[in-house]
């Protein structure tokens, strides 16, 4: 009797705070958001307690569909570029001399420890018409008028890739590190040149890392709104911006809630995929 009470106290003491924290900051807000998504917005920007499904119906309006498609497309572009840049990057780090490795990983992680807003402002000062790059190009004489770089779709893409690259590199790096070097020797021994060693052995065996890296890049890229705000001049609307606007400017909370829920659902599906790939990797 006493023993089981103690046991319960133990469970409460260890798991309790976590459960409490999750309930207060995750479960309750989530239930709140789900609740709001079924309510009606009132003229003053608040909500009326009248049940409706019209918020969900408005998802099928073409302008929202376009926002979703634009967002998915941007995220896809970001992920692909991150992979193309990140894979060689990860490969170089994984194969660097031992004493250099921690330093290279540190360089990769360093931007994480500074505020992402500030880092994005950094790009601003580089790219704008009176920015460093334009000054330099004019000084060298490559162009006689400042180039329009900031507030373009390209700038948004650049900002996204910059912010998310570490998320791609780290899982790939891990899977390259895990490669048994004798497998590469075996492939060479059996007649494979460098290209075939890569395509027939390294690439398939690091596929789990590529998958994990892609999903870890794709998911956060869907929700980033400040990069398109700051570097795209809010010309193109993405999911993140749309949600932010519904809550802050348009004050249509029910619609914002619906959009948030859709984003969460997409994320959950991708997370499910991610864990599946993870368990596949364990099997190998």
């Amino acid at each position, binding site marked *: 009797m006493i023993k089981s009470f103690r046991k319960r106290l133990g469970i409460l003491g260890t798991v309790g705070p976590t459960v409490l924290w999750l309930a207060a900051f995750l479960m309750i807000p989530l239930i709140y958001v789900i609740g709001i998504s079924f309510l009606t917005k009132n003229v003053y920007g608040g909500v009326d307690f009248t049940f409706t499904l019209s918020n969900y119906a408005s998802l099928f309006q073409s302008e929202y569909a376009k926002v979703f498609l634009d967002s998915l497309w941007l995220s896809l572009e970001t992920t692909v570029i991150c992979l193309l840049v990140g894979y060689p990057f990860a490969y170089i780090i994984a194969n660097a001399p031992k004493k250099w490795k921690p330093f290279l990983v540190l360089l990769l992680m360093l931007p994480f420890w500074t505020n992402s807003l500030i880092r994005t402002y950094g790009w601003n000062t580089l790219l704008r018409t009176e920015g460093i790059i334009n000054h330099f190009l004019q000084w060298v004489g490559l162009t006689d008028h400042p180039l329009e770089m900031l507030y373009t779709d390209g700038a948004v893409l650049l900002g996204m890739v910059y912010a998310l690259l570490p998320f791609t590199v780290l899982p790939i790096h891990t899977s390259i590190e895990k490669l048994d070097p*004798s497998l590469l*020797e*075996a*492939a060479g021994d*059996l007649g494979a040149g460098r290209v075939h060693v890569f395509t*027939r052995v390294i690439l398939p065996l690091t596929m789990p890392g590529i998958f994990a890296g892609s999903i870890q890049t794709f998911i956060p890229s869907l929700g980033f709104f400040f990069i398109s705000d700051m570097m795209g001049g809010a010309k193109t609307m993405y999911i993140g911006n749309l949600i932010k606007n519904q809550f802050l400017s348009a004050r249509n909370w029910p619609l914002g809630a619906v959009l948030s829920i859709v984003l969460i659902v997409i994320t959950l599906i991708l997370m499910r995929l991610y864990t599946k790939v993870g368990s596949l990797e364990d099997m190998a």
Partner: protein
Amino acid sequence: MKQTRDKVIISLKDVDKSFEDERVVKRLNLEIEEGEFLTMLGPSGCGKTTTLRMIAGFEYPTSGQIFLEGMDVESKKPNERDVNTVFQNYALFPHMNVFDNIAFGLVEKKVKKDEIRRRVEEMIKLVRLDGLEKRMPSQMSGGQKQRVAIARALVNRPRVLLLDEPLGALDLKLRKQMQVELKHLQRRLGITFIYVTHDQEEALTMSDRIAVMNQGNLEQVGTPEEIYNHPKTKFVADFIGESNIIEGYIEEMDGDSIQVTMESGKARIHETGYRLEEMVYLCVRPENLKLATDSVEGFRFRGQVREHIFVGSINKTMVELPNGQMLKAETPAEDELIPVGTVVNVYWNPGKVVVMRTAEEQIYNVIEQSVEIEGMTNDQIF
């Protein structure tokens, strides 16, 4: 088989290998003949695996040359060498099934699809893996993986097969079985095998010739019989099989025999070619060490029986010499045992002892010879 063994397929000339400051292989000279089963034997860290890796092309010699069929392979990468390796940990591709693993090399060589199928299937039969073509490496036992690794290398019909402790991870029974299978396979295919192991019994069972290595040096190369019965150095005598090694010096010489004086006694041995007072090691295998209660002609060498150990078909008898050294003698189990505590005469049959120069004496001899040569040329000059 033996008569075809006259063509050298691999030769190592003054091969030296250092990793940073450590010299792991020291001026190795070795010739490997076509079709032979050569085992590189030595304790871990003796440089045998490094030597194998240099032949495969995974490492390059710091100095010296390696010739494959007469061609210097210095600039050749592993994929350009006509040798294949069976790795210690098998190194099977985990994302490919048995068939694709074995077919890997043939696909690289751009062999036609139906020929690949034919050759892989033939190999699968040869290593008795029928029906497992679709298995993934993670679903196989150590012994099965081993067979896949061997098949994957042999399917390419290499001139030389390199095996790096391929049986190390298997249990004793399976290892014994695979030893026999590998030997049969090698005989049947006539491919040169270079086999690396630290297991002396394995080396004795399988090899045509054994190259014993120690601390980067090649100690001795020879047939298992030569290595076992006529070890050239103390290390070889000690490492291969069990040995009683007794230190002594040459006190007398007359015609065809020498008298060796040891701390614990004297013995007369039919040997020539030594110097008076030269330090030597006597090496006697336990099965050749005899014990008698009566005195034996030519020996004044006594010890006390300390212990009998029964090991199935034989008895091991431990004899302690006056200086404390323990000798081991083996007798058939049915022989009568000498009671523990008895003082016995220790002897051996003529020809069953190996006299070895100590390392210092060997160096001394080399110096002496070179001085003699210099002396001769000096005579000729003046």
